[in-house]
């Protein structure tokens, strides 16, 4: 199979954005992955290896081979990401690629790894397509997705803001934005909300004022920002500037919702996120053993708590290594088999399933909200609710996920 490790080491490829707007996100992912490699090689305190339910890993690398890694820059562009992944595969002999910070990149690199015959573990990718219509046998996603965000958020929203709400969506005009908007609209409407309008905003926008202003007269009383990264920071800031949060509409307090949060965005948005609800894959404030162990070893090494994408990337490195160890082989198809339907615990988020049909992880989802009184610079979000896994599950042939046509295809061992 492709890049079969023959020497005393095995090489993993960490492909993250190092330039462009998501560079900080990428840097955090990289930190986590480096930490994971240390733990696999038996250095450091072992982190979540100690809490992981599977005990196949023993701190001697993977199958006795010392783990090394190479890094690359996705630039958050599918072309560049593929170029970088290819160089890891062709030049450095990487056996698996992990990381990334956008759905477009994840889908693009996943396709590449499928063809090349290596395992791809997606980093931060939230669009339904990654494990929906674009799912691939060699690709896995630990992160949650837009559908899950909707499913987790909707009940909390209905609870907090009532069932009679009129929502106005601003949506980043590209694939991820659309799927998230679709998911949120579906799950909120299911609970009685009405969707007044969905406006698509260009990805390149920085000033959203001309999209915010019409909200004022639309009769809507909730604004849903299907934006991520800089877009979200700016649209939220603009919305607050226009006084939306101090407004009363239809006799109700106007509210803003940001379905997908990340710590970095929250820091970027500063005061503006106070009290704004959203969802997350994981948060460092969780108190289960796994999370605590991870936060501790990450915090001691880097002096800051990890972000949720860092957590995902870390967990995936362990999951991959564990699967190899359990399969007893680096062969991609063996790894795929070991991961499919794998149930585990102790990596945060409670008991988790890697579903065989679409390679999506199913686990608890967090609903969070901007902290009212942050005590320090990392304490920007507080966990409102941990939505149980059952509530966010869906059938593998769900129409938002490519329906019956979607298929993983054959796993590919490569040359």
């Amino acid at each position, binding site marked *: 199979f492709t890049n079969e490790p023959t020497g005393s080491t095995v090489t993993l490829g960490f492909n993250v954005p*190092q330039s462009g707007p998501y560079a900080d996100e990428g840097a955090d992912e990289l930190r986590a992955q480096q930490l994971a490699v240390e733990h696999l090689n038996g250095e450091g305190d072992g982190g979540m290896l100690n809490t992981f339910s599977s005990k196949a890993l023993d701190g001697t690398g993977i199958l006795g081979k010392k783990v090394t890694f*190479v*890094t690359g*820059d996705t630039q958050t562009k599918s*072309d560049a990401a593929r*170029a970088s992944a290819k160089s890891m595969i062709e030049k450095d002999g990487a056996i698996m690629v992990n990381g990334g910070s956008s759905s477009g990149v994840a889908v693009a690199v996943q396709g*590449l790894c499928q063809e090349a015959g290596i395992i791809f573990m997606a980093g931060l990718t939230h669009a339904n397509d990654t494990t929906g219509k674009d799912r691939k046998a060699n690709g896995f996603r630990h992160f949650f997705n837009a559908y899950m965000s909707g499913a987790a958020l909707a009940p909390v929203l209905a609870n907090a803001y009532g069932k009679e709400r009129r929502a106005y969506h601003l949506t980043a005009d*590209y*694939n991820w934005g659309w799927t998230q908007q679709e998911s949120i609209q579906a799950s909120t409407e299911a609970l009685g909300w009405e969707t007044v309008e969905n406006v698509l905003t260009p*990805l390149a926008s920085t000033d959203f004022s001309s999209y915010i202003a019409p909200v004022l007269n639309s009769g809507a009383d909730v604004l849903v920002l299907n934006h991520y990264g800089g877009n979200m920071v700016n649209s939220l800031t603009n919305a607050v500037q226009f006084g939306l949060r101090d407004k009363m509409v239809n006799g109700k307090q106007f509210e803003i919702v940001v379905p997908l949060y990340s710590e970095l965005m929250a820091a970027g948005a500063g005061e503006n996120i106070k009290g704004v609800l959203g969802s997350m894959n994981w948060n460092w404030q969780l108190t289960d053993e796994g999370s605590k162990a991870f936060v501790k070893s990450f915090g001691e090494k880097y002096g800051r708590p990890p972000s949720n994408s860092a957590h995902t990337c870390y967990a995936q490195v362990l999951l991959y290594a564990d699967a190899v160890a359990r399969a007893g082989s680096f062969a991609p198809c063996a790894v795929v088999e070991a991961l499919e339907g794998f149930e585990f615990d102790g990596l945060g988020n409670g008991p988790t399933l890697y579903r065989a049909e679409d390679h999506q992880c199913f686990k608890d989802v967090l609903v969070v909200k901007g902290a009212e009184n942050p005590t320090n610079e990392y304490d920007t979000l507080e966990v409102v609710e941990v939505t149980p896994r059952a509530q966010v599950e869906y059938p593998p042939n769900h129409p938002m996920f490519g329906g019956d046509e979607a298929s993983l295809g054959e796993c590919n061992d490569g040359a």
Partner: protein
Amino acid sequence: MLGLNSKDTMLLIVVAFLALAAPFLLNPFPTNSSLAQFNAGYPDLMQRFAIFGIFAIGFNILFGLTGYLSFGHAAFLGVGSYAAVWMFKLLSYNVIPAIILAVIVAGLFSVLIGYVSLRRSGIYFSILTLAFAQMSFALAYSVLSNPKFNLTNGETGLQVYGDDPQILHREGLPDVPHLFGWAMRDNFLELEVAGWEFTFNNGYYLCAVILLVVFYLAIRLFRSPFGLMLRAVKSNQQRLNYTGLNPKPYTLAAFIISGMYAGLAGGLLAAMDPLAGAERMQWTASGEVVLMTILGGAGTLIGPVLGAGFIKYFENIFSKINDNVLHQWFAFLPDGMEDFMVFIVHPFVGKGWHLTLGILFMLVVTFLPGGLVEGGQRIARLFRRRGKKTDTPDPEHHPKETPHVAE
């Protein structure tokens, strides 16, 4: 030879040698040495060198000869890629129809944009091309990828799915881009010689051969009356007009030719890796080819290829140097020194690769006004001077410079 004078023949031979021996030349370091990081001889990067070389050669035909600075050439590259992937989706994975269609579609697209944009000159022309390309990008990124009418597949990029028709696809042909069964991504030879590894990749050799062909065509074009007319356009359009020549069709032809080169490059990109992302059309991509051409030396034959190689090398090699690698390099130093060196170098590699690139841009353009090609010429002259020194003192430098005279 081939209708070229001896100097151009030499140039072509040198380029042919460089291109065909690239797998050796670009892998100068043994695989396990700490400098292996600098090896660029793996298929993907070699393909990129060739493809972006083609792109830049084409761009230079327009910019280097006529002086018309297009800031939207990436649009043709992108269109070429989309066309090629669509051929994969509809017909088969054979790269020939894909590349041909890529060239044709990019050509047609450039007729359209060129015809309109060439009504203006100078900066007004540049902004018109930029505007067209940015519109193409914006539409490809979002509007043209909506579920009802998905032409580009937006952010993710257009790719081949299992349920695509591929009407000419037959059993036994590889399920990846191929040339009559000869898969682009396969290597026809992998050599291991005493610690060195050399990869000979099908796709790269296809690119290299095409590069040589289009390079040859470019030489012919540069030396042709047509090329002369294009340089005349740059020099004095008014005079050209009053000499009875119509500058319009000349510039338009140059625009279309360079658009087709871009389309060819786009088609090849898709042929090497069947995915066409919208960012390929963004202004930064157009800017990149401008930078490649200027960096290498606008108006020279080989310059753009060098510039393309330079930038792609940084993007792919320097971005991958992380602290771990740095520690390996400096491991021979005492600990404190090692950390210090890593600390010094750290900002310039890995996620700081842009910084190094920016600094090099500034240095090259400041000290080598003619780009990298001028650098080469200066070195060559240095050698020649040294050789000549023995015969006659240079008559041109008769009076010594005297310090009291201000320049």
